[in-house]
């Protein structure tokens, strides 16, 4: 049962990991994108649309295309969201919070609308969006996992996107710490005026970080639909995971490698109510509070301790106007 719990916790955690890694990259550039929830819906539904069109246009599904087409569609969808956000906040200098909330409204609406109306819009005769063939391709994992017993179950039983999520988080961590461009990105988030004076192209970094961050976050939506939900889109099924991903950014104190552990922990907290015996239905609802309460505690503790390396990027949430110094 413990093995099953760990497995489920990690599967629950992977979308959050994608979301939080994406959001960390975005926030490191000084952009607080509250639209992550919307971006993740967009990444999910774009992948679904791509897969749906492909599955319904061919007789037999080619596994490579079945993965690549939704993946590409998801990347296009979520980078479009990132582009809107960057255009409004960087070029047009709009308020980041309001833009982010509008992006969430738009993205969640877009997801639910196309999720609910895709079949009618395309005049197909299938009863519901169930992309089992595509989902099967996405679920491909290590063939040897079964033979390794518990070790195989805990470490090797996931689909390839899960390992990609962990790899992205590690690479991002390395990028921030060890590369010049990562240093530039952090400079932009900490003090854009100084970065600008040092000859760093502030707008380019902000655009780049926001769009790449959105693409990564969008993959979380794709993973959720294709792997966790077996290719079945249900409206609002993704729930509030986008917001939880933003919480995870704080929990991980803006470090993607901490985010890996954090996401598994959050994943565990999300489902722990299923694993505590004799819990009444009402008490389950109380247990669902756990990830949020934990985030608040972390938030309060880091603000009280005020250790430099645990603080958010100094100019987070502020637009940068070169002329207004």
């Amino acid at each position, binding site marked *: 049962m413990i093995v099953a719990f760990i497995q489920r916790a990690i599967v629950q955690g992977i979308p959050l990991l994608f979301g939080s890694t994406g959001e960390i990259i975005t926030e490191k550039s000084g952009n607080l994108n509250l639209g992550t929830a919307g971006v993740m819906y967009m990444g999910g539904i774009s992948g679904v649309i791509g897969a749906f069109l492909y599955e319904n246009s061919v007789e037999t599904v080619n596994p490579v295309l079945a993965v690549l087409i939704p993946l590409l569609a998801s990347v296009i969808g979520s980078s479009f969201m990132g582009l809107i956000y960057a255009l409004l906040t960087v070029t047009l200098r709009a308020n980041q919070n309001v833009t982010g909330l509008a992006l969430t409204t738009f993205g969640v609406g877009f997801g639910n609308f196309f999720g609910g109306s895709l079949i009618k819009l395309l005049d197909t005769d299938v009863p519901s969006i169930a992309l089992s063939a595509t989902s099967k391709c996405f679920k491909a994992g290590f063939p040897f996992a079964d033979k390794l017993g518990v070790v195989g179950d805990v470490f090797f039983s996931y689909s390839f996107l899960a390992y990609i999520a962990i790899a992205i988080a590690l690479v991002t961590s390395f990028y921030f710490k060890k590369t010049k461009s990562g240093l530039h990105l952090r400079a932009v988030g900490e003090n854009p005026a100084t970065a600008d004076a040092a000859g760093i192209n502030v707008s380019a970094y902000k655009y780049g970080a926001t769009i790449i961050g959105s693409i990564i976050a969008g993959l979380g939506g794709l993973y959720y639909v294709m792997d966790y939900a077996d290719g079945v889109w249900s409206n609002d099924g993704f729930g509030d995971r986008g917001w939880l991903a933003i*919480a995870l950014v704080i929990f991980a104190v803006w470090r993607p490698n901490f985010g890996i552990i954090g996401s598994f922990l959050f994943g565990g907290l999300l489902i722990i109510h299923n694993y505590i015996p004799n819990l009444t239905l009402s008490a389950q609802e109380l247990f669902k509070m756990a990830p949020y309460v934990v985030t608040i505690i972390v938030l309060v503790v880091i603000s009280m301790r005020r250790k430099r390396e645990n603080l958010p990027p100094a100019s987070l949430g502020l637009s940068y106007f070169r002329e*207004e110094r």
Partner: protein
Amino acid sequence: MANIQKKTHEPLFHIAKRDSIPTLKAWLIRAAAIVIALIVCGLLTMLLTGENPINVYASMIEGAIGTERRVWRLLQDLAILLCISLAVTPAFKMKFWNIGAEGQVLIGGLAAAACSMFLTDSLPTAVLIPVMFIASVLAGAIWAVIPAFFKAHWNTNETPFTLMMNYIAIQLVSYYCFVYSVPKGSGKIPLLPKASWLPTIGNNDYILNIIIVAVITFGMYIYLKYNKHGYEISVVGESENTAKYIGINVKKVIIRTLILSGAICGIAGLLLVNGTNHTIASNTVDGRGFTAIMVSWLAKFNPITMILTAFIIVFLEKGAGEISTMFGLNSSFSEIITGIIIFFIIGCEFFINYKLVFRSKKEANSK
């Protein structure tokens, strides 16, 4: 030398901040943005439904204000959204990013619902309603003051804090609904006892809500514009250091303002639970707490303008809702439309605050 000067690249245009812009011109820019947004939305609707845009807009108007009943529904929704928008306004003016209105309204509603379930039998209506009112106001204020306290003392980031408080409130309500659900385990509580419903004026269910919100709107306008508190809020919002320098107690202002903000959210919760739905569920607030932030911001934190911006949003929701029923599409269509229109309005503010100065030959020659 002359050659070098020629080569220096002058950009096609540069951006300059406007000192001030005539109000009329500012509103013209906003109106133009809304018109462009409506054209984009019209094209989108046409693509999706194959109907011509004029019919689409006609059915939107029909859906929003087509019948007397619909007008009342619209006004009712407008009142609730406006009430929450007013609640977040003083906090936002102070640059306190309270995105927890959702939870503050819900917890206010929960307090009202609990009062009506447990006190209706023991208290007469005339006492019960003030008690409910106080309970909701207190609950909302407490929910808002917790993050404010940490913000004031340790500068804890309020955006994620208030966000998390939303979900804690949602889970609390969900818990409550499971504990008192009928039938057991359904997670739904029955209608509240009729004696605890807010009184109706005449035979219209909603007019009391509308009057209360109208009073709050006017009160908030006075408070922000003519009261010393309103002035302090603006100063803290503009620059915390200036505020400290001129002797404003910033901590006190933050906490006081958030108590006010939460209290009004609590009232909105009461109106929503005992004045409208007569029951409570974890989705009672339905994202209005977030929409309210956009409404307040679009109105530039002016309570009177907020009536207009709240109206635009509610109108669009109702109108787009009608389109989705007509064409058998998912009701989330309204969220897409709302999103697009807000993008355009947010974007157009740039052209109100800044102007593009194009490269002109005259200037180059005069150098």
